[in-house]
Structure formats: structure tokens, C-alpha cells
């Protein structure tokens, strides 16, 4: 357990979460949810960071969802587990600004990259809801392509 993480994300207190990577600034949660641990995905208007071609460089839920659609995801209704489907969820703050993304692993748990900090695996999507990231508001899914586990067999976006 990690007291510092649990102060930021109180939902983790008492949860069976696991830290699955060291902290690193190489990639963010959007990249990690998309299966990319080599780049920082960000729609900054200056174009300093990676963002999928032809997707608007806007900090909006529509633009973030479109980025995932470009790599095969489609909008769906909720975070419910479906065998054979990989889900991502986009979090937003109270003003509807995207703050975070998580990806569902084949066992139904979720993986989150916490900014420049660690990756964690957490049983429930709501474990990272709260003041820091708001709550999950957009859900997308795509067919899994023979992934045995979420950590070591990432799909290339």
C-alpha cells in the first residue's frame, strides 16, 4: 500500500490495488490506455506532444474519444466487463474537461497511469474517482486481439 497515493486517491484506501510500474514521465494515462508506453499523448495547441493525426487538438471529451476511435475503439454505454472486449474510460472534472483515462484488463480489473507517477492496477474503476480526476464519463470498447494479460502484451495503437 502507498500512503502518498492513497492521499491523492482516497478510493484506493482498503482496495486491493497494486503498483505495477515505477514513476516515469515518458507516457501519460491517455497513452497507456491506448496501449502506448513510449509517448506522451496530449492535444496541446502548440503541437509539442503526440496526438493522433487529424484528431482535433482540443481538451474536450469529443477529441479524446475521437483519439481512441482512431485506434479501433467505439463508444459504449458503461464500464461493465464483457469477455473478449477491451474497454477504456475517460474521466472528466466537474466542468467536463478530460482528466484521466483507464483501461480494462482481461480479468476485468483496470490499469491506470497516474500522470508522471506509477501505473497501478485496481479492481474497480471508481477507485481513482475523486477530487484529482473527477469521474468516468465516456466509455469505449474494441475487440481484444488475443491479449493474455494487459501489462505485457499491449496492442500497438
Amino acid at each position, binding site marked *: 500500500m502507498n500512503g502518498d497515493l492513497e492521499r491523492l486517491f482516497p478510493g484506493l484506501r482498503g482496495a486491493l490495488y497494486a503498483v505495477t510500474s515505477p514513476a516515469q514521465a515518458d507516457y501519460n494515462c491517455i497513452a497507456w490506455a491506448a496501449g502506448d508506453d513510449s509517448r*506522451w499523448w496530449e492535444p*496541446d495547441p*502548440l*503541437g*509539442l506532444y503526440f496526438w493522433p493525426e487529424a484528431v482535433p487538438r482540443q481538451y474536450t471529451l469529443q477529441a479524446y474519444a475521437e483519439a481512441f476511435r482512431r485506434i479501433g475503439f467505439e463508444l459504449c454505454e458503461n464500464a461493465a466487463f464483457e469477455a473478449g472486449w477491451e474497454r477504456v474510460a475517460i474521466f472528466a472534472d466537474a466542468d467536463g474537461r478530460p*482528466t484521466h483515462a483507464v483501461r480494462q484488463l482481461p480479468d476485468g480489473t483496470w490499469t491506470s497511469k497516474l*500522470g*508522471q507517477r506509477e501505473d497501478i492496477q485496481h479492481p474497480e474503476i471508481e477507485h481513482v474517482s475523486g477530487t*484529482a480526476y473527477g469521474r468516468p464519463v465516456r466509455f469505449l470498447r474494441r475487440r481484444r486481439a488475443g491479449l493474455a494479460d494487459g501489462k505485457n502484451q499491449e496492442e500497438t495503437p
Partner: protein
Amino acid sequence: MMTVSALQSRPSADVYLSDESARLTDPIRRLIRVGRERGAPTSLTESESTSWSAVLAQRFYSLAEAWRRECAHLSSVRETVLHPAYQQIVGMGPAALPLIFMDLNREPNHWFWALRAITGEDPVPHEHRGSVKLMAQDWLHWARMRGFVS
């Protein structure tokens, strides 16, 4: 663009970037005054330049640490660069560049927005965008070409 040496050689008038800088500088200036009164065999110009550099470095690392500590969990660089500590570093202007490059060389981090804001340049090729280590290398190459780092 003001270079660090130009900044160091500025007149000794007490011009500070902020109240915090003034507070940090006061004890050093008192030491210089005592040394001068007692005939310490050191160059006053050198002492003042060194003290100014020390103040800048101390301020930079204090702000950088606060920025890292308070923004590490944020998933958007846009949010992190709006943090007051980051903005104060940008506000240090060209004097911050050697310190930023030193930090970038030690550990690649998201100084790219600050570098772009201070220098008005962006040496990162399109294919490196988002690859933090490669972006850091591109900026460090740029810095070496201009003598900011050896």
C-alpha cells in the same frame, strides 16, 4: 536575449525577481558587506556574481521540487505548466535556461513548454513529439550548440 553572464554582471542595485528572491539574497548580501568591511581578499564582483547564481539556482530547485511534488499525478502537461511554481520558473526568463538544461540532462521531464516560452524556438522534429527522452535530447543538442551546456 539576456545571457546568464549578462545577468550576473548586472549592477549591484537591489533588483529582485520577487520578494522571495530578496529574502533569499539578504543574508548573502550581509555576508558580502561584512567581508568588505573586514577586508576579505575576495573579488566583490565575483562574490556578487556567485551569490546571484546561487540565489537563482536555489530558487529554481525549490520551485522545480514544488512543481514535481504537486503536479506529478496530473495527466495533462497543460495543467502542470499552469502551476505557479512552473510559471515562476518561466518568469525567470533566460537566466533559468542553464538550470533547466541541467535538470533535463539529469532526468527528462516536461520542461518543453517552458523552453519554448523562454526561447521562442522548438528544435523537436515532428517524429519525436511525445517521446520525452528524444525531446530532451533534441533540446540538449540545441543547448550545446548555443553554449548553454558543455
